[in-house]
């Protein structure tokens, strides 16, 4: 029960008494009037405290709601960023080739298949495919081989709907190895196409 409710019977009683007193016309000293002023001040102070407490509570609630909102937006942005990073990583995934070959193996085709929906959903994205070779073979032949490896991947993507003008091809031959050991484990990594996003905004949309 609030203070006001508790006081109500007293107030009513007071009015009743004073009303009766007015009827009987008994001018007794109004002790309750003196108490009423003090009580009134106390009551008003109490009311003020209640009002302030309520206001603070409401403010806190509003602030919590705002913070929740910001957190939800940030989480959503973070989620979009993570998703975009994963999409970018998928676009950038390397495909590899057999020795002296530019044909796409099945695993390379599967890897290219994961890039296609992303490229189709983000039509402002352009990429550069760079072909590479391992150190065996003459450096000059390997430069041509790298160009063909890039061209094969591009043709696969273009045949499946990616606009030709969005894909640039180039070759680094055997000039940019990612490892330098002379063994098949290293060579097989170097026989690759690399994919680089050259334009199209930092955020990629999900397909």
């Amino acid at each position, binding site marked *: 029960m609030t203070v006001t409710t508790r006081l109500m019977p007293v107030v009513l009683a007071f009015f009743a008494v004073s009303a009766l007193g007015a009827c009987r016309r008994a001018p007794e000293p109004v002790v309750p009037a003196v108490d009423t002023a003090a009580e009134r001040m106390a009551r008003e102070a109490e009311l003020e405290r209640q009002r302030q407490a309520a206001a603070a509570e409401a403010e806190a609630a509003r602030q919590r709601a705002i913070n929740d909102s910001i957190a939800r937006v940030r989480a959503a942005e973070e989620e979009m960023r993570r998703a975009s990073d994963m999409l970018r990583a998928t676009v950038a995934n390397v495909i590899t080739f057999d020795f002296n070959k530019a044909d796409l193996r099945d695993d390379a085709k599967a890897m290219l298949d994961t890039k296609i929906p992303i490229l189709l959903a983000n039509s402002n994205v352009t990429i550069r495919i760079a072909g590479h070779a391992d150190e065996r073979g003459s450096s000059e032949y390997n*430069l041509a081989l790298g*160009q*063909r490896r890039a061209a094969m991947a591009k043709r696969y993507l273009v045949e499946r709907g990616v606009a030709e003008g969005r894909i640039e091809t180039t070759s680094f031959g055997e000039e940019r190895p990612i490892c330098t050991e002379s063994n098949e484990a290293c060579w097989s990594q170097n026989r690759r196409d690399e994919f680089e996003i050259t334009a199209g905004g930092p955020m990629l949309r999900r397909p």
Partner: protein
Amino acid sequence: MFVLSASSAFAQDTTRGVRIGLTYDPGTKPGVVVLPIRAPAGDSLVAIFERDFDLSNRLAVVRLAGTPPPTAAGGRLNYQFYGTVGAAAVVQASVTPRGVHVALHDVAKGTVATVHDFPLTEAPYSRAWRHAVHGIADQVEEWITLRRGIAQTRIAFVRGNEIHMVDFDGEQEQAIPVVGAALSPAWHPSGQLLAYNTYGPESRIVIHDLRTGRTRHFGAQRNVTNLTPSFTPDGRSLVYSISTENGADLYLMPLEGDAFPRRVTVGRGSENVGPSFSPDGNRITFTSDRTGHPEVYIMDADGTNADIFTAFDFGDQNDRASPDWSPDGRQIAFQSRIDGRFQIFTMSIRDRQPRQLTSEGENEDPSWAPDGRHLVFVSTRTGTQQLWILDTESGKLRQLTRAGGTRLPAWSPRFGSR
């Protein structure tokens, strides 16, 4: 100690084609003494002459133990003495205000065979001075053996992604400024231009003028790699490979006028790279994988009659590349994989018998010297890629570079003749 006489005993004119002493025949090396030169830079002159004669593999330098015997009156050398130490020729040089005066003595005949005044005004020890001195050595060698030497040549090559060149004797390595990551330097027959290609996006053919430092370039296009430029023997055009999604074909580009490249090979999707002309300009040898793996081919310069040159079989996965046609037109040097590594081979156009020239380490990218006898190539035999020079007649090998990572050498023509 000897006195150089300035008397009229010396003729005033070069007699080219003077042959010293014995009938020259390959396998014999005439002995030659270079007399000390008492002048500033005289020791350097002697050292360069002697080293150039050593490295030619065609002369046997006789180094005297003590001072040479005194010259007799009238400037006559003690020919009998020189005969006993095995010299067929004596080179007697002196420094003049305008250059170097050289008298070549024929020991057997006991006379001066020829004299000449060579201009030499360059600052002593400079790159240009050394270049001119090498030219004198080459002329002296021609007097003795009837064949001009190759001391006044340079070898261009790739180090990192840059084009460098070094003198025949391994000195004076210099870089030439390049417009991008560079490969495959090639000399114009005049020795005054170097072509190369850049790779990556904007791959192009670049022609660098060594006299002026100016460059011109062409071919940069999306989705294209331009590679392996090679000048025609008449110096008027350049053949190179354009690699696209349709394979790599060789194209001919005239250097003058409104030029556009004209296709030469019909590769039908195969890779055709690395052209090298026969010295008469009528045929081209190149690398092609039209059978599924790289082999060396020869075709007419207009692209017709293409046929495999490396028709021999080393088992599965044959891999042959980087042909270079010899200056005498008789044979082609190339690399072939054998036992898992590339080695240098030559094969004559006539007999088509492959000759393996290397076996240690991995050896690639052969390039003929203008004498058609020496070959420079890349070898890993020391553990890093270095340039080595092989005398195909004697089998002598010489390491040309010491700092690692050298590739794709190209031997220059002789720089002008005397």
